[in-house]
Structure formats: C-alpha cells, structure tokens
C-alpha cells in the first residue's frame, strides 16, 4: 500500500504556520494576521483534497499512514479517516479561518501569541480526528487542551481564569482514567493500534469479560461525556464558552465538543459494543435530560453568549441520543448533526462576538431594536438562528430529523421526549432574537451602532450559504457517511453474536415512510443498504 501523506500534511501545516508566525516581529500585527489566515486557508484548500481521495463506498479506514514510532510498547504513528472523521476534519479546517477572521480587530493584546495558539489548536484538532493509534489519539487529545486553556485564560473575559482552570481540570480528570483504560486495553490485546484491536475483538482473538468491558467502556465514556458534555458533567461548558474570546468559543463549540461524540463513535461503540448496549438506555435518559434541561436553561439566560452555550448542551444531547439509538439512520443523523451544529453554533458565536465587539457586553437587555441600526446584520443573524433551530431546508433540520427518525424506529418514547427539544429550541432562539433585534431601540448607544462591516458580512454570509447548502444537498454528505455507519453497526452486531443475549434488533426492518423532504435521498439510500445485508466490504481491507 503506497503511503499517502495528505493527513500528515494537514496535521503539521498549521504547526509550521505557527512557527512561521513565531518568527515574525512582535508588533507586526498585520502580517501576523495575514500569515495565520493564509495558513488556515491553505489548510482548508488542502483538506478539500480529502474528498477527492475518499472512496465513499468503503467503510474502512482510508488514506492511512503508518510509521513506527515508539518501540516499547509498540506505538505507531498511524493515521486514517473514514466517513465519520472526514467531515469533522473538514469542519475543523473550515472553521479555523473564521476564527482567525473574527479575531482580526477584536484581539489587541499579544496578537502574535493568539494566532500561534489558534494554529496549534488546529493541529491538535486534526490530530484527534485522524489518529488511529490510541496513544497518538491521547497525545493529541491532551495537547490540544493547552492552546484552548491559554486562549480562554489570556484573551477571555472577566472570569477567564476560573473558566480556564475549570475547563482544563474537568477535561483532564475525565481523560486520565481513559489513559488507564488505554493501557489496560493494551494489556489485554497487546496493541495500541485501533484497527488491530478492533480486529482482535471482532474475531474473538481476545475476549473481554463483561465486567472488564463495562469498566473500560465507562472510563472511555466518562472522558467523552465530559467533553460533549452530557448532562451531569456539563458545568464547565457555560463558563468556558462565556469567558472565551469569540474565536475560542467558535472552535470550542464548533469542533471541540464534537470530539466527545466522535470518541463515542470511534471507540466506545466498536470496541465495547455489549457494554454500549447495556448502558444505552441510561445514556439515552441523560441525553434527553440534556436536551430538555439545556433548552430550558437557555431560555431563561439573560446573557446572550451563555444562552448560546446552553443550546450546545441541548443540541449535543441529540447527537448522543442518535449514537446510542444504534440505528443506521440515527447514527448518520448524529454525524450530520455534529457538522451542522458546528456551522450553526459557530455562526451564532460569531454573531454574538460581533455584538460584543460593538458594545462589550453580552447582556440581552443591553440590546433591543438592533434591526434599525444594523439591518444586514439582523437578517444574517436571523438566518443563522433558523439554521440552529432546525428550520427545514437548512442544515440543522437534516440532522435532527434523521436522529429523530432513526431513534423513533427503535425507541419511540426516546424520540418523543427528544422532539420537545426541537420545539424548545425555537422558543429560546426566537425569543432571544426578538429581544435583541426587534422592537424599539431602548438603549441610546445602540442607535449609532455600525452595521456589519464587509469582513463581518463575508463571515456571516459564508456561514449562511453553507447552512443552506447542507440543508438542501445533504446526500452529498450522507452518502460518504453511510458505508462507515453501516460498518460500525455491523461490527457491533458481529461482536454481539458471541453474546448470550444475541437476539439483537438487527433483523428489524427499518420502516421509512416519511415524506420526501430535504433529507429523503439520504434516507432512501440508507434504507436500501440495511445493516443486516451489508456486503463484506470490510473484508477487502
């Protein structure tokens, strides 16, 4: 197999860019910004080549790269992507230029360090999504915390230190047990290499006793649950989001939260399918609590940024629910929702950041009637709100719809409860929008606010365009996820064949009698290839 270095290039390009920025003069702010932007755009362009190299018919890891790294214990530099990570990589490379653009004028102090941190963060994010060695994954997972920690701590708002410490300690506390689990898994399987471990577990070369599996699952799941965050361990999120600078919030909400759900799909499900099945009802309950609780708390926020932060808890609850419903459609929906949440919540944070740049406050009552001084901004903001509250034809709808459909087929009651979240999202977003944008201008200062500048229009318009594109052209995305999610479910099934409770709902036909809407093509194709009849594509690997 010829080695393709595309993924390595993607990992190290931002790092090289950050070193180049480091060499620039301290006060050369303009060039620092330009160089950082150029790097991140180049990164995005290069990442588009992934689409060309990606074979959408295969659910296996692609564009793999494999080098020896540490000899004892055997740890490899092993990279690869599949339908889950492909778009998350693209999401990361897509959002980073926006993070840089939105900080163009709002960061005045230690400009150079700021952009270095953003680029290093990008390296970490890509690394997390493409690493196929557990050790390598953990390395990126932890290292990525540091730039975010500095972003919040140095360039954050009033309570930045508290938020930064809370963020990093929470995440570390979760991930340290994952490290123990990784080493334990190595002890059981003799490998850190994910595909190899998957193979050994699948073919029952290594059998995990039920108790061990549950413990390992728990250790991995806790780390990811904190990152997502799932309901009882979510308290770091509102603080971190609120205190972070706009760019930090965009990346945090857009990409970092997805690492939790990505980890569940990548590790928890395929490695520990029985434990996942056993815990699924409990996790689903937590996810539903998260959906409703997040939405209700968001409704009563008087701080706009905190409100957006709580919407993430609600939206990510959908993703977790979709994952643990174990249906092909709901998992595709979960992946889709991860992307679309990245775009729409990223957009919301960008918009809120623009307001903050003008007024240096996030208080909703400080605004009101902004449609009068800022008409362009108001309409673009509305569009993003619509995309976030899942208006049909926009991106948010596809994800939520697929998740709810897939979940409904398995557990109708879960879907019924979760669906209330969709209604609530309209409540909190539209109500907040109404208070901020409509009505009379109540605060004198707001009368003279400048409308969105060209740079800001460009940022918001691009986000809106992508939201629309993802809403109407969802098959372009779901077609590439399909094989992977089938493959994933199939792996889980195969493992369960050895389980005494083997009567899994695998054979259940997936009824799909929904109206043909934006998502219909994806659903139709998903139905054709039900996961009990998937050809053995995996075997070719």
């Amino acid at each position, binding site marked *: 197999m010829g080695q393709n270095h595309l993924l390595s290039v993607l990992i190290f390009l931002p790092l090289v860019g950050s070193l180049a920025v480091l060499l620039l003069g301290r006060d050369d702010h303009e060039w620092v910004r330009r160089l950082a932007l150029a790097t991140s755009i180049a990164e995005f362009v290069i990442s588009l080549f992934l689409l060309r190299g990606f074979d959408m018919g295969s659910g296996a890891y692609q564009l793999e790269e494999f080098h020896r790294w*540490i*000899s*004892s*214990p055997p740890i490899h530099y092993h990279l690869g992507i599949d339908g889950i990570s492909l778009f998350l990589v693209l999401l990361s490379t897509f959002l980073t230029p926006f993070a840089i653009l939105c900080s163009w004028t709002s960061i005045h102090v*230690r400009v150079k360090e700021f952009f270095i941190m953003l680029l290093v963060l990008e390296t970490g994010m890509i690394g997390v999504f493409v690493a196929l060695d557990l*050790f390598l994954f*953990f*390395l990126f997972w*932890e*290292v990525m915390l*540091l730039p975010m*920690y*500095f972003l919040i*701590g*140095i360039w954050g708002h009033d309570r*930045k*230190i508290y938020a*930064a*410490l809370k963020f*990093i*300690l929470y995440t*570390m*506390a979760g991930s*340290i*047990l994952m*490290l*123990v689990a990784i*080493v*334990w898994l*190595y*002890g*059981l399987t003799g490998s850190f290499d994910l595909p190899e471990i998957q193979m050994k577990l699948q073919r029952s070369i290594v059998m995990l006793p039920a108790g061990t599996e549950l413990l390992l699952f728990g250790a991995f799941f806790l780390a990811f649950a904190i990152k997502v965050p799932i309901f009882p361990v979510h308290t770091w999120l509102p603080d971190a989001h609120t205190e972070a600078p706009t760019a930090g919030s965009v990346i945090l909400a857009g990409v970092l939260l997805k690492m939790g759900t990505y980890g569940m799909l990548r590790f928890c499900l395929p490695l520990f399918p029985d434990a996942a099945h056993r815990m699924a009802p409990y996790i689903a309950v937590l996810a539903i609590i998260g959906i409703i609780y997040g939405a209700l708390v968001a409704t009563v926020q008087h701080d706009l940024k905190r409100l957006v932060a709580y919407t993430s808890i609600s939206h990510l609850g959908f993703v977790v629910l979709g994952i643990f419903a174990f249906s092909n459609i709901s998992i595709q929906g979960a992946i889709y929702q991860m992307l679309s949440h990245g775009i729409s919540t990223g957009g919301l944070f960008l918009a809120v950041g623009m307001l903050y740049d003008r007024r240096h406050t996030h208080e909703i009552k400080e605004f009101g009637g902004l449609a009068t001084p800022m008409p362009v901004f108001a309409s673009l903001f509305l569009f993003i709100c619509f995309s976030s509250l899942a208006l049909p034809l926009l991106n948010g709808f596809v994800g939520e719809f697929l998740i709810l459909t897939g979940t409904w087929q398995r557990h109708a009651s879960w879907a019924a409860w979760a669906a209330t979240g969709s209604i609530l999202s309209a409540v909190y977003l539209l109500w907040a929008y109404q208070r901020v944008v409509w009505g009379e201008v109540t605060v004198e200062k707001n009368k003279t606010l400048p409308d969105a500048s060209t740079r800001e229009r460009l940022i918001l318009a691009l986000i809106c365009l992508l939201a629309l594109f993802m809403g109407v052209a969802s098959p372009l995305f779901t077609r590439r996820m399909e094989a992977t999610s089938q493959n994933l479910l199939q792996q889980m099934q195969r493992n369960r064949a050895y389980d005494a409770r083997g009567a899994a709902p695998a054979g259940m036909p997936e009824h799909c009698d929904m109206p043909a809407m934006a998502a219909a093509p994806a659903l139709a194709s998903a139905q054709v290839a039900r996961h009990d009849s998937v050809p053995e594509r995996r075997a070719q690997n």
Partner: protein
Amino acid sequence: MRPPIEDVFRLAPEIVLCFTGILIMLVDPFVSAKNKKFMGWVGFAGAVVALASIFEAARHQGAAYGGLILTDHFSLYMHAVVIGAAALAILGSFTYLEREKLVRGEYYSLILFATAGMGILCGAGELVTAFIGLEMSSISSYILAGFRRDAIKSNEASLKYFLLGSFATAFFLYGTAMVYGATGTTRFEGIENAVARPGAGTLLVLGLVLLFAGLGFKIVAAPFQIYAPDVYEGAPTPVSALLASGPKAATFAVMLRIFYVAFGGSNSIWYWAIWIAAVLSMCVGNFGALVQTNVKRMLAYSSIAHAGYILVAFAASTKLGIAAVLFYLAAYALMKLGAFVAVAHLGGAGEKRLDIKDYAGLSTQQPWLAACFALFLFSLLGIPGTGGFLGKFYAFQAPLLAAREVTAMASPHVASSLVWLVIIAALNSVVGAYYYLRVIVSMYFWEAQKEFAPLEVSPSVTFVLMIAAAGTIYLGLFPNQVMSFAQLSALSLH
C-alpha cells in the same frame, strides 16, 4: 591480594569526581577572590569528564573490588543520570552564587563529593558500601543545604536535614546490622540466597523495614517526607535542584538492588510497604502542594508526589517496572532540575521573588524563560509530548501489565491492589494539575502587579534550561533509545 587494575576503570567516574573535588579544595585557597569563579568551571569540567569516563567504565563491566561495586548496565545508566544532573546543577549555580556573593570553591567540591557518593550508591553490591555512598552524599548535602550562611532559613534547612538525615542513616545502618545478623552476609546475592532458605524470620523483616525507613527518607517518600519542604525551601535553589534530582535517583537505584535483588524472591514482604508508601506519598505530596504559595515549597511537595509515582512503578515487581523507574528518574531529573534552575534565576538577589503571585506577568516580561518554565511544569504535570508524561505512562503501564500476570497466578488480591494503585495515581495526577497550572496562571494570565525588573538570563543558565527543555521534549517524543537502555539495565539486575 591486590585488586586488578580493571577495578580502577570500573570506578573511574567516582575517582574523577573525588580527584576534581580534592583539587578544587587544594587550589582554592591560592586563588584570589575575583578568580574564584574559575573554580566553578573546574568543577563543571570534572563532572563532564566523569560523565565521559562512564564510557570507559562501560568497557570494563563486571564486579569491582571483589563485588563491593558492580559496574553493570544498571549502574552505568544511573551514573549517567546522577552525574548529568550534577553537571547541570553546577552550571546552574554560577550566576546564582555570584549574585548571592557565595562564590567559594568548596561549594563545587561538595557537589562533586556528593555526586561521587551517589555514584557509589548506584553501583553498590553490598549494604556497607551502600551505606558509605549514602553517607558521602548525605554529609555533603547537609553542608550544601546550609550554604547561605547568612540566611536563617538556610541554617534551619541544614540543621533539620542533618538531624533527621542522621536518624535515617542510622536506621539504614541498624537495618544492615540486622540483615547481617539474620543472613550472615551483607552482599546482595548472599542475602538473596539466605532469604530463599526458610526460617530467616523476624529479624530479616525488621532489618528490611529499617532499611526502607532509611532509604525512604532519601527518596522523600511519605511518611519520611516531613523535612523536605523546609529543606528545599531553605537550601540555595541550585542545591535544591541537585537534592531533588540526584540523591533521589541514586537512592532509588540502591533501593532497586536491595528490594529486587537481595529481597527479590520475597516481594510479598515488601510489596505492601511500597504500596502504602506510594499512596501516602502521592496524596501527601499533591494535597500538600495545593496550598503552597512559595514556589520552592510547591516544588518540594511535588517532589514527594513524584516519589509516589515512581513507587507505583516500583510496586509492579517486574523487569518492566524497573525500566519504568529508570526512565522516570531520567525524565524527572531533567524537568525538576530545569524547574529549580528557572526558579533560582527568577528568585533575584536574596531569593526574594519566590511567591507564585510574584510571577505574575512573567510571560510578557521574559517570554522565553516563561515558556521554558511552563514546559517543565507541563512535564511535571504529565502533558503528553513531554518526558514527564511518558515516565508516568510507563509507571502506570508496568503495574497494570503486572496485574495481569499476577491474576494468571491466581492471587486476585494483589492484582486488584495494583490496579487500584494505578487508579489512585491517575486521580492524583489530576490533583497535581491544579497547582502546576496555578503557576502557569500567574505567569500567563495575570498582569504584573509588583514590578520586578526582568533579570537578564546568563549564558550558563540559558544553556542549562535549553538542555533540560530539549531533553524533556526528546524523552517525550523519542523515548526509544533511553527506554531500550533502561530495559537493558533492568535485565542486568539479577
């Protein structure tokens, strides 16, 4: 019978160290005050030559002086760690001593003598030799700790260290006597054979306990850690750097020999002692460090915690465990030395700038220094990509893998205790994250409040920081060479 000439080569590092130390002592009175600085370079040269002479010793491996000193891979590896640490500590002292007006030749001689003692500890093949090494390094360190004669804290440090240290060495000697009484020998192999015979009994166990108390003092493991914060705080900071890295490494070396070789067949006797000491050290160290405001004290508590992590690897009782201890010691020596040298530099005249709050805004004043210090702290914390992380990784890995082997031998009790040990260690490292991050918070997130003028970093300090930083990253990203040598060393212990 005269010992063969080869034995001289086997002991080459110690001989070089002692000769340089004596040379400095002899020449020093004839050197005028303004040329005293030169003595430092002599001391550094001595350490570097000693480091190089390890290669000479490596060509003559074997037992020297009828088995009193063992020159094997293990000993060579530990020599490299200990002497390397000493060389960096000497280099890191130059500007400190000048600033504190303490430039005197005997400082360097004492460091060299202490290092020679540590070298003997690393190679000792029997208990009395180990005791001599222990005393050599201890007595020199007592004086070094009190080297700031005008500072009350330094006097206090020296006195405390001396009083408690004498107890510890006395315990060690007493333990040696008991082991001798029980087995009729002080040689490790001899003890090993005697332990294998049934009926050695209480005396042996008592001896082992006393030995452990003596050694536990030097590795700063709880419950023998009480002195450490005061001593590390009071001692001149470069000396604290040496104390935290060198003696700890050397004592762990001799401890490995005593526990794994001499008492290797009966790890059931010492397993729980190590287990408890590990848990206590981690908890006392980490929770103690949480409330410190003085950076030196904080680093002292962190030193206790790290002794705990190393004991976690120690408790594995496997070859992999030994290798993990050895790797950890190398990584630890580098990062701790780097951190203390940075603190020594930042302290300013009279060591005034030691409070965590005083570091506020350091990252804007001196970005490179702050970055180096941050790197050492991240390594102590265990962020992947640094030597500290891999050290911890290996330290966690060894007991977990050992637990599986033990389970196979059907003693679930020990197996689960090993797993719990790792979990406790893991949770402790999160507690640890808090206090290391506090320093980072101060350096990076706070604006400077009290104005401390930025101190120019001298070339020697820069060099030490660069070496330590490069080594920390090297061990974190490319551990293969050091780890394979550590594994080779572990195999040479038998």
